[in-house]
């Protein structure tokens, strides 16, 4: 609202907002995170399953 406007709307854009304003950076993070944590880690687990004795 207007009573905050004078202090809020100005100054340098904070880092977190810059991140949220960068679709392509978010795209890379959003594809990279699950690829590493879910897929790659998951596949490593499967590969590591031993053969039955």
């Amino acid at each position: 609202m207007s009573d905050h406007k004078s202090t809020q709307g100005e100054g340098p854009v904070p880092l977190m907002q810059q991140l949220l304003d960068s679709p392509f950076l978010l795209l890379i993070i959003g594809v990279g995170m699950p690829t590493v944590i879910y897929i790659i880690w998951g596949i490593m687990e499967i590969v590591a399953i031993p053969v039955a004795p």
Partner: protein
Amino acid sequence: MAQFRTCPDTGFAIDLNADKLIKWNAVTAVVFLLVGGLFGLAVALTRWPAVHLLGADDFYLALTAHGFDVLLVWCIYFEMALLYFTSSILLKSRLALPKIAWAQYILMLVGAIMTNVAVLRGDSSVMFTSYVPMMAAPDFYLGIILFAVGALLGCVVFFATLYIAKRDNTYEGSMPLVTFGAMTAAIIAVFTILSGAVILVPTLFWSMGFIGSIDGLMYRVVWWAMGHSSQQVNVAAQIACWYAIAAILFNASPLSEKVSRTAFLFYILFLQLASAHHLLVDPGLSSEWKIFNTSYAMYLAVLGSMIHGLTVPGAVEAAQRKRGFNKGLFEWLRKAPWGNPVFSGFALSLVLFGFLGGITGVMMGTEQLNIITHNTMYTPGHFHGTVVVGTTLAFMAMSYWLVPTLWQKELMFPGLAKWQPYLFGLGMGLASVFMMGAGTLGVPRRHWDISFADAAMVHEFPAAAYMMMGLNGIAALIGGVGGAIFILNMVGTVFFGKAKQPKAAAAEVPNIGGAATTYGSAGTMAVPGTFVLALVFLTAFVLYYFVNWKYLSDVWGLS
């Protein structure tokens, strides 16, 4: 050169390419909802023991077609329309790469038809999950791949439009929250589709005989990176619709841009990990992997959802209070337009998604609790609470605004439309509850005959299980009527609707282009009503969660 028209209702400049593409994608989506919905009805009537409509062959065929047509084709086609709407129209930009966008439409259509043909032929009744080593015909997989490539092109167009809009300064500052939500959906969609390619392309080659075998566990891990993430696309898109509807109906601003966008960021970072929900009782994956992934890294994505669950109705409450509906905790809610299907669809979607889909999903996604729900009817019960009464209902609500506005036509059957969200929400909500009830009693999903008439050995399910499956059939019929009214209304409006009288329209829908807009709750409104509702939700969540631990603790010891 892109051409624009001005929307008489909203004042938006609409790129004619985007206009056409949104219309074609939305109409195609609805057609597949019709096809898939009919299969769903046939499935529900077969699982109603007293009716047992289809034979075994046809049942498994219909179930495969149902899953594919509604879950993938309906949802993703509609999401393509949303991507174009939220990028081109909301950013007041031309749509980038219209030719690619048409390729998106056509590839998805060819793919959808190809897979449907393969299924209807009868040699590919493998369920839409197509777990190896059960093999479908090559065109079954090829159709899904083409469909996915089409969807990927749609995402490319979306991101390219974000890029040119920013470059050409069609808007100032940050993109609108609704577009941000759609972008979240698009990011998840890219991961979804790439995972799909990684697993389905080799599977296609295997079905053609070029590859000897596909590992069953590997398939499941990668397939669910697609299968579950595509549900997260639905969730993100549905929440973008919620914010859009709150804005369109109430001129609502987000309570806080920061909080809402951070909640979406949690989705981007963590939502896709939950693909592990499907693998909690699989052999060989460690509990560390299961726990970290199934909990979206410590439930941070659930935190995101709970935030949206507060901020969406909170935005409505703040807007209503600003209009003077300030009495008590709930005047803002009582005085909401419950007869307007855009609102009632939105409100039901929000509540039912949270209570039926959300709570149950987190419960059954808990590593150990999954033991007592995996592959029982509880599973379809849960996801009819998410993707049907959540996503589908949100998309229906959105359509009640989008279709008359884009086509500039009056709704064909406004009287029926008033009732439609209640019918559909109630019917499918009850269906979801009854399916979960049957699952709690052990009834398996994807099962033609729980009386085991042709089996060498028989298991007798309790009478209550039969009753649940019967009630599910009745509820499905009610929901089916609701779905039919929606489709009738949309198709009727598009093809036979009366041209809109600009005046009458303005009375119904606030002129969103012109309204004075403010943002941020800071220094404005507290939202006590919403907060109380949120506490009710949290209480139900906590109770239900621990009740299920109690159920689990009663079963045989496992270690």
